[in-house]
């Protein structure tokens, strides 16, 4: 899929997630994002990402649950004398935390197709000309990430055999310093190589951009309609804001924003129809 079509889909998904307070629509976007990633990259490849996102969501829920002692439905209470933790623990605080977690998870998964479904050069090719040099620099630095991981393994191996043991922050410096310095040196060598190949000498061209096919137009159109439908519903009040405090209520569901969220499944249909 063309990077610009993927970018349009991601932008629309992010708009919906960040413009609504309703957990229903956020969950719909989250489900659409998981479906798109699973269809495009396969469940096996996204397993680690899903676990990380689940962890972040759980952490957000827990954080709000223990820190916001608001709401009418008290589940239990700790003595108020306990600093930070004391006070009532409410269903509303837990649900509000969970919605925050869903928001973060959905936002991460909505942006993930740009890195998981596209090569870095496809993203660079899709950037407008004024951003292309910045894009190249970012892509090049991303290529150094595996080298950093390798150097971390090498450094810990080598320092352990010289008698290093992880004992507090000071001992960590014996590993962190070589890893950081090796990474910086790698970046400098890469920059030197880029300079030697004319980087920064003027207006760039690109070898090839992936053609914008009918399926790409379909994804862009579906994303555009979803965005308009959601923005319109929001403006007219039919998307309905939701807030759990002081007493938990069920969020309302309306057909137009729901249809908008369902349109985000367009990339799944495109990939399925190709197979």
């Amino acid at each position, binding site marked *: 899929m063309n990077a610009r079509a993927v970018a349009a889909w991601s932008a629309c998904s992010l708009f919906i997630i960040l413009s609504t307070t309703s957990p229903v629509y956020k969950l719909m976007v989250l489900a659409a994002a998981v479906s798109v990633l699973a269809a495009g990259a396969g469940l096996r490849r996204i397993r680690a990402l899903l676990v990380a996102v689940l962890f972040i969501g759980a952490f957000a829920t827990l954080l709000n649950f223990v820190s916001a002692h608001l709401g009418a439905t008290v589940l239990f209470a700790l003595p108020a004398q306990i600093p930070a933790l004391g006070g009532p623990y409410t269903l509303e605080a837990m649900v509000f935390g969970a919605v925050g977690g869903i928001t973060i998870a959905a936002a991460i998964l909505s942006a993930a197709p740009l890195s998981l479904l596209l090569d*870095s050069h496809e993203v660079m090719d899709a950037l407008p000309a004024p951003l292309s040099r910045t894009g190249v620099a970012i892509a090049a630095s991303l290529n150094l990430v595996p080298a950093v991981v390798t150097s971390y393994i090498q450094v810990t191996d080598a320092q352990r055999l010289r008698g290093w043991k992880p004992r507090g922050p000071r001992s960590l410096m014996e590993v962190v310093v070589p890893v950081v310095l090796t990474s910086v040196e790698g970046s400098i060598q890469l920059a030197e190589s880029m300079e030697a190949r*004319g980087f920064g000498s003027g207006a760039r*061209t690109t070898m090839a951009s992936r053609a914008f096919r009918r399926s790409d137009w379909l994804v862009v159109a579906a994303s555009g309609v979803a965005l308009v439908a959601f923005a319109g519903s929001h403006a007219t009040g039919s998307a309905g804001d939701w807030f759990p405090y002081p007493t938990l209520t069920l969020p309302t569901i309306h057909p137009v924003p729901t249809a908008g969220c369902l349109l985000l499944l367009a990339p799944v249909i495109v990939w399925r129809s190709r197979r």
Partner: protein
Amino acid sequence: MAIAALTHLTYWYPGGAKPALSDVCLQIDEGLTVVAGPSGGGKSTLLRIFNGLVPHFHGGRIGGSAEVMGLNVIATPTRKMARHVGFVFQDPELQTVYNVVDREVAFGLENTGVPRRQISGRVEEALHAAGVGALVGRAVRTLSGGERQRVALASALAMRPSLVVLDEPTSQLDPEGAQTVLAAATNLVDEGTSVIISEHRLGHLLRRAGGLVLVDRGIVTGADPSTWIPPAPPVRPARSAALGGEAWSLQRVSAGFDGRLVLEGVNLSGRSGEVVALTGPNGGGKTTLLRVIAGSLAPLFGSVWRCRGRVAYLPQNPSVLLHRPTVRDEVSFTLKRSGELERPGTILEGLGLLPVADRYPRDLSCGERQRAALAAVLPGDPALVLLDEPTRGIDSTARGALVVLVARLRDRGASVVLATHDDDLRNALADRVINVRDGKVSEATFAGRT
């Protein structure tokens, strides 16, 4: 015809007290020119003059004049020189921008604004010239070291430069990979491109070279490649102690990482006072085998046994060891941790590092860093010595010193395992040679055996 002329050129790196190049007067003619000399002598600095990375990228002070392909290097930025001079660096992994071969080769063309319709043709042409035409569309991460380095050469050639400069392009490659890169480089000369190459494997190149430049301590002199005699390989030191008992052993060991099996069913052992050399292609499993012997990587199956005592381990990338303010501190650090009483000066002197003992290790040249890393792991009396490509980037003098040092440790009873592509080192030290290929090990016949 001259393609480059340096006149009374002197260059200081930023903050450098002494010049890295001193009053260089040099003319380079068309064809193949070889640059040789000890590590830390200034070869890489000289090569970087030809495309302006020195002084434009590295900064510092420069005096005199340099003209390459009719351009005044001091007044022309590297990004402009790039249209005329291609450059290939030592490390194939640290010069890759894109993750697909053809896009990588096209990078320079894109930077210089070559129209899109011309790029594909020029990429194809460059890949063929570098002998890797079949790699179009391949992911860079799936390539071997030799393939990567030839892709780097193709990236330089795509710009259709009149001059290609290669800075020790084979220092990290196995003999097969190195041979393909050197053959591709010499083919360029046949096709009319001038080549300047700094290299430690000089034999093949000197027969083809039209010019030879020697660089030592910043002094640059010309020599006749047909009469110049390269340094002799190190002599095999006599053994002063008999082999001892078993020092380490691997029983049916399989090992790997990231879900990939790298070693499979390995049975191998080594004795005290014995030197075992591991050879084989890049990616065959030598480094993984060393890590398993060292205890850094646990086997997935099978068992590993090591004798008691310190393990001295030199990783493939020496920089990962170095984090102290001076080279001397690096040695003291290891001695202090191991509780051994040897003076740091002993090993520093042995490896010719006393002149740089109080310098910051990361300010040293590639070869000097390698020696500093050797000094950091080898002081005292380790029981097990594991060295991964210990002669990478070091000159013949340092190689000779390393041979003496390892022979001394061997005679004191250390069990030594070397992973190396260096035939001279293997011939000077190895008691046994083990071929590691596709995760399997086999004993190789070895002429140097005593």
